[in-house]
């Protein structure tokens, strides 16, 4: 419970700073960018608080999707300045990274399940405590 409150506060703080930073930019009115930041924060919160390891991985994916959407929102804005070619390779790179992180993470979770018979992080910690 304590952990959830602390995480919520941390995420809210990061969100407030990001929104303040974006809102102070001239000619920034993109609802897409705000929506993408909301996704980023949602994913971050799930990743920090949920004890189910698979849900943590889902949170990670939501977080990164938020970042990609943020880039797309920027690409739309900057297309008027003729510099829209750069975000797409960066998103490709980011996508490849997230897919790899997800793959390696899920592989490790499968093997952990074989050892402990659960994918709940707290349960694993408890069983590990009993082992020692």
């Amino acid at each position, binding site marked *: 419970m304590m952990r959830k409150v602390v995480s919520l506060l941390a995420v809210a703080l990061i969100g407030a700073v990001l929104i303040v930073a974006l809102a102070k*930019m001239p000619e920034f009115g993109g609802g897409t960018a705000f929506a993408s930041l909301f996704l980023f924060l949602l994913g971050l919160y799930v990743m920090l608080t949920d004890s189910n390891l698979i849900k943590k991985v889902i949170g*990670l994916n939501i*977080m990164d999707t938020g970042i990609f959407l943020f880039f797309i929102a920027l690409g739309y804005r900057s297309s008027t300045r003729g510099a829209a070619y750069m975000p797409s390779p*960066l998103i490709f790179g980011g996508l490849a*990274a997230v897919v790899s992180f997800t793959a390696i*993470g899920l592989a490790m979770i499968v093997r*952990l399940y074989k*050892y402990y018979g659960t994918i709940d992080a707290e349960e694993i910690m408890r069983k590990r405590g009993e082992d020692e």
Partner: protein
Amino acid sequence: MSHLPVVILVVYLAAALGLIPLSKLKRFSPGWGALAVTSLALLLAIVSALFVGANGPYSLFPGGHAGQGIEIAVDWVAVLMHLTINLVGLLILVFSQGDLESELKRSYLPIYYAVYLLALFALNGLIMAGDLFNLYIFTEICSIAAIALVAIKPGKQCLQAGLKYMFLSALASGMILLGIGLVYMVAGELNIRALAEAIPQAFQTCPWNVYVAVSLIIVGFGIKSALFPLHLWLPDAHASAATPSSAIHSGLIIKMYIIAVARIIFQAFGPNLFGSIPAPKVILLLSTIGIFAGSVLALVQTDLKRMLAYSTVAQISYIIMGFALAVPAGIRGGLLHIVNHGLTKSMLFLTAGAIIYKTGIRRIEELRGIGFRMPLTTSIFSIGALSLIGFPGFSGFVSKYYLAFGALEAGKPIYVAVILASSLLNAVYYLPIVIRAFLGHKTGKFTWDQLPWPMTAAMTVLAAFNLYIGILPGGLLGLVKLAAAALLP
């Protein structure tokens, strides 16, 4: 000749991809194959360094537009780090010829070597990335290879450590990407040179955006390079991984992220902007806490590898402190400590691995009298311990001397006191091991180490480099001065 650094990358990538299919051949040993590739890369790095020495630093623009887009910057930082990475990487690989079969399943060996080469590939690319896109991609490849190097060893502990590392590393990657996005949003550029021109104006129009981008990038790379409160993944990962993985992690990987973030901060954002925001003060404070907390936590550990891992937390804080001082002498100290600690800590992890290989001892208390059973290994451990304490005549002294000099140059003499006090703390946890190993109760009679020759050779060569840098630091210092000037003119 000017394309040599790219050839290094191509060689590593091709070898990493080809190693697994090739290992199906009966007569092909993946370990010696990887060793041959790394030796070739070291040779290429030396030739490339001589070329840069003769013709001066240069940049390659694969996109075809000089000054913008993708850039491969072959400056003195890249030369210095190329030599360090390929030398240390080669020696760890030599060691693993003797050690790895005792730690991994035989069928995993080709995969291990392929991932190891992939990590070296990413490290070599990361330190000469001249634009944020390349830098991000190589950071990701390096992170994923690093996670695989931890998680590949069978056992619950490695899996848990790897999973923790994976989540924190992925979080850090997200932050770095968001930071790069925010920079791109205001500056419209990703090339570091172009950014250096575009950022001052962007800072005028939307300072908040730049603040947030700098903090996201620093926190992201801080997680990956284990800046103090963000080091949570490090002790588990470094202590549980296979010996060569621990050595490359502590010795190379976490430090090259610091080079990457130093490039972004000093070359793109510029030292003036960095000095005008509170970031350096916060980083200096955190690294000071990290130096003491890492040392104190190392002091209470009972497991040898875990103690070395916490010692890495303390030592990495020295490097970060040197860079955060943002004066030439501090950066020289930081770069020197990257090289020295890279050589020393990988050597210490290898000696710990050799002790575990031979005797199975992991607990520090049981090391009493180990100097009589493994005299050479224990002597090499002592050289590393004295170097990290900063004993005059050993390599750690040279870098700590420059760090202290940097603190004076920056007008912050308090950090000289920090360095002195923490050296004392280092002595408190390293010296008892050495003293007990040689002067503790004599158990059994005196024997030589009797290790496989690749392990002995790798440790001896690392020790020789350590002694050489400690006694004759002149050549390295010349290189470091040029590299520091490339980061902070």
